[in-house]
């Protein structure tokens, strides 16, 4: 085992049953070079203070559970290493902009409601039976949307988004990226059904094009790019509504 040295981890604690407001607490954690922030928190929970609350599962940056603010930046704690934060102290808070349920645990329900609202499933362009086999899709067609399929719903981009900080009705970068994922899929024909959501006040036009969402995204989804592409679509859609009579093909 590598020789551990101590690092100070400060956690913004909050328990709705007895705390009037969040408050910082500090812990000394033995730390080796290969330890993640998540492992640091697990050490606190296991050995020092079992009341600390945080979500985690996979430990490998794929389940999307463990997002939090690490020294003021939205990060996956399982993918952030204490060695890069030496000499400390390391400051850990719940993801910004989201309601805190307890300690580092934020409300995910609002995000999931938005995700559900955009019809995040294939609405086939042409029906096909199982006996007919798979839809054909070339690697080039796949590439057009593949990056947007990589979103792990970690919500780091929401914590990064200044517009979402001001207006929690904004559907936000991650969900727009998912919407774009289906619209850009060669098998899908549901764009018209999803368009009203984008055009609405809480849709793409809320975005102030800061781009911090893409910077913090741990999976290179580039949600800002999805938002931008859809601003173009949304503008065209708006324009066409005046040109083409309803129901006519553009």
């Amino acid at each position: 085992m590598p020789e551990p040295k101590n690092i100070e981890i400060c956690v913004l604690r909050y328990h709705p049953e007895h705390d009037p407001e969040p408050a910082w607490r500090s812990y000394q954690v033995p730390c080796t070079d290969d330890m993640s922030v998540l492992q640091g928190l697990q050490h606190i929970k296991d050995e020092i203070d079992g009341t600390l609350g945080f979500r985690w599962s996979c430990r490998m940056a794929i389940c999307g559970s463990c997002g939090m603010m690490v020294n003021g930046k939205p990060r996956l704690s399982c993918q952030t290493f204490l060695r890069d934060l030496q000499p400390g102290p390391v400051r850990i808070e719940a993801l910004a902009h989201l309601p805190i349920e307890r300690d580092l645990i934020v409300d995910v329900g609002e995000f999931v409601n938005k995700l559900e609202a955009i019809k995040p499933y294939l609405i086939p362009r042409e029906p096909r039976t199982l006996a007919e086999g798979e839809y054909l899709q070339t690697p080039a067609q796949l590439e057009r949307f593949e990056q947007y399929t990589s979103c792990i719903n970690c919500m780091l981009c929401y914590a990064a988004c200044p517009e979402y900080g001001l207006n929690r009705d904004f559907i936000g970068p991650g969900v727009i990226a998912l919407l774009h994922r289906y619209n850009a899929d060669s098998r899908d024909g549901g764009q018209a059904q999803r368009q009203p959501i984008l055009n609405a006040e809480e849709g793409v036009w809320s975005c102030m094009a800061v781009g911090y969402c893409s910077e913090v995204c741990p999976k290179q989804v580039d949600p800002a790019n999805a938002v931008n592409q859809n601003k173009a679509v949304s503008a065209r859609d708006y324009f066409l509504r005046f040109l083409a009579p309803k129901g006519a093909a553009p």
Partner: protein
Amino acid sequence: MDVAEVDVAIVGAGGAGLRAAIAIAESDPSLSVALISKVYPMRSHTVAAEGGAAAVTQAHDTLEAHFHDTVAGGDWLCEQDVVEYFVGQAHQEMVQMEHWGCPWSRKPDGHANVRAFGGMKIERTWFAADKTGFHMLHTLFQTSIRYPSIRRFDEHFCVDLIVEAGRVQGLLAIEIASGGFRLIRARSVIIATGGAGRVFRENTNGGIVTGDGMALAYRHGVPLRDMEFVQYHPTCMPGTGLLFTEACRGEGGFLLNKDGYRYLQDYGLGPAEPTPRNKAMELGPRDRLSQAYWHEKRKGRTLSGPHGEVVHLDLRHLGEKRLRERLPQIYELAVQYLGVDPAAAPIPVLPAVHYTMGGISADGLTAAPLAGLYSAGECSSVGIHGANRLGSNSLTELLVFGRVAGMEAAAYARTVPHGAPTKIGALAEEARARALAILARPSGGERIATLRREMAQSMEDGCGIYRTAAAMQATCDKLAELQQRYRRVQIDDRSRVWNTEWLLAIELGFLLDVAQAIAHSALSRRESRGSHQRLDGFAERDDAHFLKHSLAFHDGDGPPRIAYGPVKITRSQPGTRAYGAAGEQADAERRAREDVHA
């Protein structure tokens, strides 16, 4: 107590639970479904599966070949009629996933691509880059949103099943955010809670993979079948156990010892050729590869690292471009977690616990020997994995048997009424009191983490890659001691809102029960088969005595009672399990024999 009433309740919203829910909703929208999960569905551990899902696809492949690979891979402890159904349904399920939008990797002509996988004779593993489980899980979750009859109970932790009048009639769950209880009454229940890898120290599993559903069924008298069979995956990250998918080897990666030698050729897996040949060398089955590591370590031919002895997974010859295209997540893991650029240096790896072959005893239609109860996915022992699972069969299993469980549970639900509310309510109150008692324990007891660590270490010591009676007995004794100490487990947190320590304490109880089922089943099996390998005079397979499923029955406060049940053999008589050149010869001989009979 809050009460919800549905037709079918599903515990677990990973691949298996979601597939079951969709099957019910599609076939009969009038049936109400409760989908209960202790995490949001997309956090379920299916998300971590990397390599792919098997289904016969190419023109030169046959169902017969997939059947034989699976049965021989399982060292003939598979239910052969169930395997036959499984291989027959697999392709249709892959196409169904494609129709639901799963971004399968493609060939230039637009068809889904397949890759090689360990123990599979012909390339038949569908994949979505190296994030297959992630894409399957998100596709299923997002597709499930279409169906209004599926009512989700996200972040609800199931603490007990309600069994009344000889059949399961619902379950009790804690709503994690409030700490309140919710009784979910149902005509039938499907358990789809995943594996139990967390009973071992070094493992590839997420923190939530704690065998809950297995323990729930077990406590209500349902036997756990073939629990001694636990799969070690040969290529994991030292320290954390995180997985480097078998696809690394499917793409052509080598395993090297400290001399840079492809040591697998010394263990009946050769000849060593520069490109991968299916069912040979690095593409041999996982049990054989993990065992070879153990021998190399004993011979002093491994390398010492900060977290133990390692061998090298060498991907350098594949080149950065191919690695980034075919194994992007592996690339990222190696760079970020280990500081190793796999295009420039070999990756240090060692075996870690990966998969529980056994599980809740189920017939070929997923029904447990308790009326109204069904199981699917890794928690279930429907009979396709035998003594060793082949990689990429389990993602397919989630789909094939998730669907079957949904259909069967729905059919059963139509035939029975809801039970008497007063009786069910009373049972729920008792279960609630038991769960709350943990919160009321006096302080000064044992710490959860201490017990968990001792259990996991003991399981590794006694039920690892190679086993002896003495070491297994020591583990059984240790587990009995830990069960005693568990009664004094103490928690710091006595509040209700998001009390994760409380849930950890309940999970530890599940883990200990499952650990006992594993250790006692292992001790009782006096032979070597698949992943269960003994060194103490039982080094051979013994079909005369042990071509049988083990069944672990919960037995009050004592250790489990172990019984045995028959194995269904249809077409494939137990033969020699051989790989590499020897395997090809054995295959040819088998075919010649079958031609004579045909």
